[in-house]
């Protein structure tokens, strides 16, 4: 059984990679987690649970083990003992350096530290996850070979990956195998658009949302004809690919020893154009009017609309202002040539991110965009119709004002006033009804709750739900809620 040492397992790509590794029969995975181990492990467990992997079961069968550490700090001596392959996914994706020295500290020094440890312990294979935009290439074709140079205007992230690639290639030796994998811009999965990180291309989507909000506040503007200049060419490609697809390939590359080049561009062989992305985004946010321009940035005559749009960050320009293609010899060799992202998938990913408030509502943002479950109907129709029939109605002493906040859902907040076991009123959104206490719960956990697959108490003890206000009252309310749900569960989703 091959032992793979994985870094970055709690990241957007990394937790899919861990799942895919553990789906293989003959692999044991040692996972590097940042301190504190138990906290990070709990987070990882939740992330994997959201994508269908029971970490406890994998743990029980000795398929996965954890070591605590934070690169570039030195690893414990035993961390790499018995490891055949290192799969180094961890990275800082900051575009500009911060005071801690990231992204260089994590991406260059961290990789160098791991390479040193690998050299000492005799690791045979090192798979490094770089980026398709290594070195800040803005035009031309990126070959599947060492990046020729780093562009003078590359951002700090692209520069750090360029430097890290050089160190990885220097580690290569006759008895040591190196793979540098360069994924393109990753977006949420095909099924739900699920993502856990909302930088990158999502910043562009966020910019369109800001534009739409500005339009909401200006009755004089035709929101389908907003005068907005977009830096870039409409025919340039925006190389986006689904995270699950990248994870599957990365896992395959890590576990197979088939001869390939040392450098692999893991990119969408048939990506959308900048103009496709513009149309898809405008459609989601119900705006229009953007037109591409080759005018050199920065401009001195930006309009209020452009200020709103570009306020989201420099990534807005980075993702539409390039015209790069990629050598795809590896992908052709494994039969990948079809488009990976269409309008439906892209828009699903954007809607998921928007509903998760771009990651600000919670670190945990699972939940099916196309789920049958509608919390609004639950609070506003289902509960009022069923509560009078439940035994809760007989709890004459039950009077309280309770707020429910469903994370990962826009405007997902309801306040309910109960009196003598009866539901007197329900309001959506913040309002003047002061609650005695409330529950804050993730959307997917809430769905499991109302379908009777999990109790509110369990969700609370597993930190999937939080209580605010009067804790004692809230705790005493939990068996009341669980009683109602046991008597009146929503049907569980199929499949």
């Amino acid at each position, binding site marked *: 059984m091959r032992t793979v040492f994985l870094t970055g397992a709690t990241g957007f790509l990394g937790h899919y990679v861990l799942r895919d590794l553990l789906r293989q029969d003959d692999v044991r995975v040692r996972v590097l987690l940042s301190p504190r181990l*138990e*906290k990070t492990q*709990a987070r990882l467990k939740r992330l994997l649970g959201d994508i269908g992997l029971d970490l406890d079961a994998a743990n*029980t069968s*000795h398929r996965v083990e954890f070591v605590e550490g934070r690169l570039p700090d030195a690893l414990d001596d035993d961390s790499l003992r018995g490891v055949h392959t290192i799969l180094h996914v961890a990275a800082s994706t900051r575009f500009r350096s911060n005071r801690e020295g990231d992204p260089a500290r994590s991406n260059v020094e961290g990789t160098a530290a791991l390479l040193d440890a690998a050299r000492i312990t005799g690791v045979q294979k090192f798979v490094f996850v770089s980026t398709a935009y290594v070195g800040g290439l803005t035009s031309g074709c990126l070959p599947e070979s060492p990046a020729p140079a780093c562009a003078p205007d590359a951002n700090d992230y692209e520069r750090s990956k360029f430097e890290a690639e050089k160190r990885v290639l220097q580690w290569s030796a006759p008895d040591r195998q190196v793979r540098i994998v360069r994924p393109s811009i990753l977006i949420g999965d095909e099924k739900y658009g699920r993502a856990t990180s909302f930088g990158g291309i999502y910043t562009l989507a966020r910019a369109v949302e800001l534009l739409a909000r500005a339009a909401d506040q200006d009755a004089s503007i035709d929101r389908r004809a907003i005068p907005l200049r977009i830096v870039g060419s409409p025919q340039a490609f925006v190389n986006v690919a689904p995270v699950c697809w990248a994870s599957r390939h990365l896992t395959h590359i890590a576990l197979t020893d088939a001869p390939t080049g040392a450098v692999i561009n893991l990119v969408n062989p048939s990506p959308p154009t900048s103009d496709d992305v513009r149309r898809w985004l405008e459609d989601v946010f119900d705006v229009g009017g953007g037109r591409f321009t080759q005018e050199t940035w920065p401009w001195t005559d930006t309009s209020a609309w452009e200020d709103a749009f570009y306020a989201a960050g420099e990534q807005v320009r980075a993702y539409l202002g390039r015209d790069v293609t990629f050598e795809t010899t590896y992908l052709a060799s494994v039969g990948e040539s079809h488009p990976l992202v269409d309008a439906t998938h892209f828009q699903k990913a954007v809607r998921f991110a928007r509903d998760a408030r771009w990651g600000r509502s919670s670190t945990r943002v699972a939940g099916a965009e196309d789920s049958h479950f509608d919390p609004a109907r639950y609070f506003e129709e289902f509960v009022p119709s069923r509560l009078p029939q439940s*035994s809760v109605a*007989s*709890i*004459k*002493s*039950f009077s309280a004002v309770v707020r429910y906040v469903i994370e990962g859902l826009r405007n997902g907040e309801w306040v309910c006033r109960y009196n003598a076991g009866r539901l007197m009123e329900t309001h959506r959104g913040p309002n003047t009804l002061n609650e005695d206490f409330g529950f804050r719960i993730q959307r997917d956990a809430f769905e499991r709750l109302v379908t009777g697959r999990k*109790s509110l*108490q*369990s969700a*609370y*003890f*597993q*930190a999937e739900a939080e209580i605010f206000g009067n*804790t*004692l009252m809230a*705790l*005493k*309310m*939990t*068996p*009341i809620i669980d*009683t109602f749900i046991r008597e009146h569960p929503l049907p569980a989703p199929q499949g």
Partner: protein
Amino acid sequence: MVRNIGDILEERLRYESDGLLLEARLAYDQHIQPTCAALIAGAHPLLGGHAENNVAQSLRTDLAAAGVAAMTFNYRGVVRDDGSDLDWSRMVSEFWERGTVPEEALWGRDAQSALRELRRCIEVPVVLVGYSFGCWIVSRLVDCATPAAVICVSPNPNQHDMPALQADHGPLLVISSDDDFSCSLDELRCWFADLPAPKQHSLIPQAEHFFRGREQEVSAAATTFLAGAGLIGDQP
């Protein structure tokens, strides 16, 4: 049924209480001869008190890893098809109104029965461990069980009198947090000061009543205490 977690074996048992067959889980290290056994009484059944509660489950596993035969158990009614005829709806209603239910005495009897089962399984000194409401439960067992030690996690003396702890009970460890909604730190210290020695208080800051994500700190405090009391060997 036996579940293997590394070197730890977990047996799913049934224990008899007032004619009911209730669930318990006994965990131990298959390579270590236990020097003591722990009965872990969980939180209030209406507040998530069952054998797999985060604190109870963590204590069971971690104490087992330290060489203790550790048992958690379900009170009657927690598993709805256990044959008990508790009126759950009435209990929920009464609990909302008064914060207590008459069935608590029955759950005390279940703990006595679980203790009998533990002693039937293994003949070593017994440590009583209570979490929250379980502290009150174990306090009621102290007289008859003559435990080698007692551990109370998040006791709530405001809610439950525990007079047995005022008498001779062997070494006592109290584990609490400084932001427990049910009992302030000052209130807890005041109650603790009146308890007879030998006793220790382990404070886990900012962990609330429930120690969510901090369960291993509870286990570590318990293990260190038992090692200090000579009930287990050095910590692994």
